[in-house]
């Protein structure tokens, strides 16, 4: 099917070949029963996991449009949106900017979702499957333009409140320390 289509495309001109190749072949692989990569997420120590830990640079789904869309759906369904909005933040920090408090590598984000973080991020470990967490990881990274641009979702199903992930500029992620609660630390009792 694919080669026959290409044969015809040769006669139609090289520009069409390029478009056809991009649009039609090879079709993206969809995995419906994926196991999470071998990275020992439970042992993840924040900010130390790098791409050599068994998790690919973009996690298992960073270039998978289907999984990214699933992640976007889960982001709403598990009320992530309630705190992080569409990436701009609210009760929780923004996810579309360059600043990452607990690490920006896929395994860091996996651990954040699975185990929670001390300043208000709840643990979703027993509420959601590992595969779904990885889909969320991919989507969360796509909010700041990480991962494959072609795979990122290109529209919102609801009211437009921000540019689609596919239109988002790719931020260069940086680690930040969480803003101190009290600065300078106030001493209890009589000064």
């Amino acid at each position, binding site marked *: 099917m694919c080669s026959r289509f290409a044969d015809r495309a040769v006669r139609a001109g090289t520009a069409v070949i390029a478009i056809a190749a991009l649009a039609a072949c090879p079709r993206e692989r969809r995995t419906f029963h994926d196991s999470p990569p071998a990275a020992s997420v439970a042992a993840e120590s924040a900010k130390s996991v790098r791409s050599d830990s068994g998790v690919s640079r973009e996690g298992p789904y960073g270039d998978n449009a289907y999984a990214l869309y699933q992640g976007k759906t889960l982001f709403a369904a598990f*009320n992530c949106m*309630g705190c992080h*909005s569409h990436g*701009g933040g*609210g009760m929780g920090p923004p996810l579309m900017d360059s*600043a990452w408090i607990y690490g920006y590598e896929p395994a860091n984000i996996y651990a954040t979702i699975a185990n929670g973080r001390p300043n208000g991020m709840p643990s979703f470990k027993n509420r959601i499957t590992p595969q779904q967490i990885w889909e969320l990881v991919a989507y969360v990274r796509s909010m700041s333009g990480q991962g494959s641009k072609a795979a990122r979702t290109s529209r919102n199903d609801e*009211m437009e*409140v921000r540019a689609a992930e596919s239109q988002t500029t790719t931020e260069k992620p940086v680690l930040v320390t969480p803003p101190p609660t009290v600065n300078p630390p106030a001493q209890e009792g009589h*000064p």
Partner: protein
Amino acid sequence: MSALCGCALALLGCGVDSERTPAGAEGQEPHIMLQKPLPPGGTGAQIEAAATAPEDGQWIRPAKDFASSRFSGLNEINTSNVAQLKPAWTFPTGVLRGQEAAPIVVGHMMYVVTAYPNLLYAFDLSKPGASLKWMYNPKPLTSSQGEACCDVVNRGASYADGKIIYATLDNNVVAVDAESGKEVWRTKVGDINKGETMTMAPLIVKDRVLVGNSGGEMGVRGWLKGLDLKTGAVKWTAMHTGPDSVVLIGQSFKPFYKKDQGADLGVKSWPGTTWQIGGGGVWGWISYDPALDLVFYGSSNPGPWNPEQRPGDNKWTSTFFARHPETGEAIWAYQINPHDLHDYDGVNESILLDIPWNGSKRGILVHPDRNGYMYALDRATGEVLYAKPYVHITSSDSVDLKTGELALNPTKEPKLGKTVRDVCPAAPGGKDWQPSSFSPRTGLMYVPHQNLCMDEQPTAVSYISGTPYVGMDVRMKPGIGGNRGFVTGWNPVTGSVVWRIAEPFPVWSGTLATAGDVVFYGTMEGWFKAVDARTGTLLWKYKTTSGIIGQPVAYRGPDGKEYVAVMSGVGGWSGAIVAGGLDPRDSSAALGFVGAMRDLPRVTPKGGTLYVFSLR
């Protein structure tokens, strides 16, 4: 620039609503508009705040008195000399989140509660520079920060019986010895794992400490509790959803309107068991009438915001209640926003006034609701004497005084899969928590508020305990005129605007009225302003280091001089973009408030400083 935007918006609004006459439409506003000249001497001679005490120079609770007048009888600082006001001393609290608390002054001491982690600072005003005497840290759970919908604010403490009493973000009510700073008692009254937090200032009436929970955005079940002042023991709990027995509705309960009468409406007006996660918290203000022995307060919005998931009236959310403080027993209730569509909480303040009404004296409470109407209710019965728009309203047409019903505009009803545009007022309402004041000298109320509209679209949402239960995409924008805030001088007898000051940003600070005929308020850019109580004319302003969303107070220092104090430190729902470092590219951030506040980070940094001003 903002004026241009406003014109565009106004045109847009005309296009959308050309056949409708929006309630309260005022068109383009000049900076100050004197709409109804005051009679010489004002109307004050006929109006007085109920339940005030002679001026003693103190400020022992955020609302100053039980009538919630926020009026200081001090007049050393007045219209003729306020221009000479200068900072007397300042104190950086070290906490850089929204500072909504009122400083409390008792004798020669001042007390201030910060935003999370809810530090309590005590200053000795008799010492040079008002030196710090002690600091108390209640050590709230760090995870409580993730349960607070709209910045980790605290609206202040109250003083009684030698104790400073306030609520922490993680649901502890603490009583601290006012002299030593030692904790006297601590009572845990809520659970952050259910989405509950606490941000309101307690009201202390006789031997009861009245507190309620926040979390209308988290699927909490709202309540008001009465704690024992001596021990902190919970003496009663009035739920705001559920059967009458737990709402503390009994034989004495006499709602004025038929729509609020019937058995177990807190269950029957909900589908299935959704009342158990239906919201209706209490995080605003409570007033008290000693003559009737009743407290008055409103409950919050229902959850989730998506109204299609909760068909019915959703009682007793967004409802005004009168209760006996000793027992919590409900006397009357008036549901202001049945089946609320737009996050119109009923928690805003009520000022208790005795006014001339049809030839006799009437005891009323005046309540500026989120839905854009100023309500005057009879304090004894809950009858609505008037409900008049104080902002531009498109979400409803009027309030029927015979039935008490709010006539909704059906074209602004949110429906799944549909974007509803130009809903005015926006979710924070015509006015949010920021409390008004009242001067018996002018007879006017001074109402700080916003001028915002919104587009919204519901989304399906599931309840997961401890996570937001909202189900609504929102993007807010400036209302007609382009300015996002107002301070309005309101005549509570005629129910009309006397003067109005337009501010570029929402006026998220409280106001303070004084016997010097000066009204104080702060702006989100950081200006602390004094205006003429009769005309709204600007008399003085001072730029603080951060946006002001706190409550100004006035007191007489140990040296006999008058001081005015306010916290500076931007944040709250409106200032979340700065306090939380949110991304302006997402207009739905902070439940849609960021859409209207993109320029705030350019005009103010975070802050957390106490300012005290005097003439010398």
